[in-house]
């Protein structure tokens, strides 16, 4: 910042940052502080009286089996990992296919990019419509052609599979954009040199292209985990509502449900704090990495 020419004014810079700072304080810092504060209290839902309970809310989450928080953690991890690996593998594969001189490549790119515009919630609706046991075309096919009864509101595995497919489907174009940009920055002469040396396309990809892509891959890995953990609330809310039972109640869904529906303020706040720690962890990993790459 120091190599910039600086204007001289005492008041103006404060006026300029004021709108941003007001919103940051009112809608970010204050509520976050509230969440931390409330996580140590138990609120009586009728009188609104606060009772200090120390770290009881946290202990309850992890050690009281009725809170099913550990299960929620487990399903979130499975879900996030499944979405991340499925959508990243598919996107990388597709980006490799497009990244060559070929007819229609502009058309292909557009066709693969547009789903980015689809809201996560709408992705849920699209997949729900295909797999709805009563009207879904795919559900019908599964039942009448393959003899598989699709009942994602009753079958735990099917529910998890459905939200995983919907969430991955939506994320393909995001990953695709980054992988394609990454592939385009791989120097062509390097790949050609390897080809002249007799390396086949598969070997060229794994020994030259893929290692050069690793910054993109790592960035996407973190972003996809963040997506899987935090941004998939709309799909769960729309498609399974956390069910059957609580089997697809991922962390962000649970924090919403316990707070908004069950009005358990203390428990929900404690969950918020845990989620905050998770996001901070992921962000730190990300920036550590970017820093390293700058030096490299």
């Amino acid at each position, binding site marked *: *910042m120091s*190599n*910039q*020419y600086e*204007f001289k004014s005492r008041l*103006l*810079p*404060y006026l*300029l*940052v004021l*709108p*941003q700072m007001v919103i*940051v304080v009112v*809608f*970010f810092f204050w*509520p976050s502080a*509230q*969440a931390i504060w*409330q996580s140590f209290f138990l609120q009586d839902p009728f009188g609104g009286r606060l009772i200090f309970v120390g770290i009881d809310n946290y202990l309850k989450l992890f050690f009281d089996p009725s809170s099913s928080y550990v299960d929620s953690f487990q399903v979130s991890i499975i879900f996030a990992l499944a979405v991340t690996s499925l959508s990243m593998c*598919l996107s990388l594969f597709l980006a490799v296919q*497009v990244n060559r001189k070929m007819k*229609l490549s502009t058309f*292909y790119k*557009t*066709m*693969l*990019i*547009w*789903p*980015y*515009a689809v*809201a*996560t*919630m*709408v992705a849920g*609706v*699209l*997949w729900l*419509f*295909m797999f709805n046991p009563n*009207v879904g075309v795919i559900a019908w096919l599964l039942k*009448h052609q393959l003899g598989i009864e699709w009942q994602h509101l009753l079958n735990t595995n099917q529910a998890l599979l459905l939200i995983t497919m919907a969430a991955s*489907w939506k994320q393909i*174009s995001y990953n695709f*954009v980054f992988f394609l*940009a990454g592939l385009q920055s791989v120097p062509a002469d390097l790949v050609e040199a390897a*080809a002249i040396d007799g390396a086949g396309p598969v070997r060229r990809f794994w020994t030259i292209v893929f290692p050069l892509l690793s910054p993109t891959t790592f*960035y996407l890995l973190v972003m996809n985990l963040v997506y899987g953990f935090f*941004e998939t609330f709309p799909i769960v*809310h*729309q498609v399974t509502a956390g069910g059957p039972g609580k089997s697809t109640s991922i962390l962000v869904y649970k*924090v919403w449900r316990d707070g*908004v529906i069950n009005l358990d*303020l203390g428990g*929900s*706040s404690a969950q*918020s704090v845990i*989620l905050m720690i998770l*996001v*901070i962890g992921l962000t730190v990993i990300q920036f550590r990495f970017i820093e390293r790459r700058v030096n490299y």
Partner: protein
Amino acid sequence: MTEHSLLRRFTPHLYLWIAIFILVFPLWLVFVASTRTSMEILAAPMPLTPGPHFLENYKAAIMQGNKNLGASALMMLKNSLIMALGISTGKILISLLAAFAIVFFNFKLRSFCFWSIFVTLMLPVEVRIMPTYKVISDLGMLNSYSGLILPMVVSATAVFLFRQYFMTIPREMAEASQIDGASSVQFFWHVLLPMTRTPIAAMFVIQFIYGWNQYLWPLLITTKQSFYTILIGINRMLSGADVVIEWQIVMATTLLAMIPPAFVVIVMQKQFISGMTDREK
């Protein structure tokens, strides 16, 4: 490239067409359903070609909406548009101002401000649902556009992007404009803004889509039909358990909800891609 055999040239096309099919098929079904009657959709399997009820269904969706919803698609599209435009322009505006202050001024709280904005990256709505809801309700902003927009207009990514961009502008330009007698505000308005057009366009595409596709926040704070965004409307139409879902109306509304963001992505594809991938740097 190095390979010449016909098969090798053909297979990528095959894979890509399969992928496009998987991406487009759900959309096609939505379109087909939106041109059929409720009866035809319920008579599984539903037909896979469009029917003759296009105009009728869309007219019903746009003018009245689902019978039990009490909100028309037109009104909900308007709400979504106000929210998306409010969030995207708001973010760009206040981020430009903040980045301008941080890069071109030296003031005491400069790094404090920068880091405060940066930290918001780590506090998405999902992790502070209840207390933020309480703030909005204390401020009397439930069921209001300002409640939908204001908490969303802070953007660490936009401040970053503009800061990064401003830092590449040669300091001589600011110096020269001041020698010519321009104030800092004039410099911002006449020199800096015109130069920043490309990053602003890129940011707009990304933030418009972000704003349009907001779900959890409107779900929390809109309880009146007149403030439903289109996504909330779709959710409400599908959640009526006892009533028979009017699939043709729901699907017409779903398609309508997809058009504005898809339009922005396709028309501004170049800005969109540069805006996304620049963020990483």
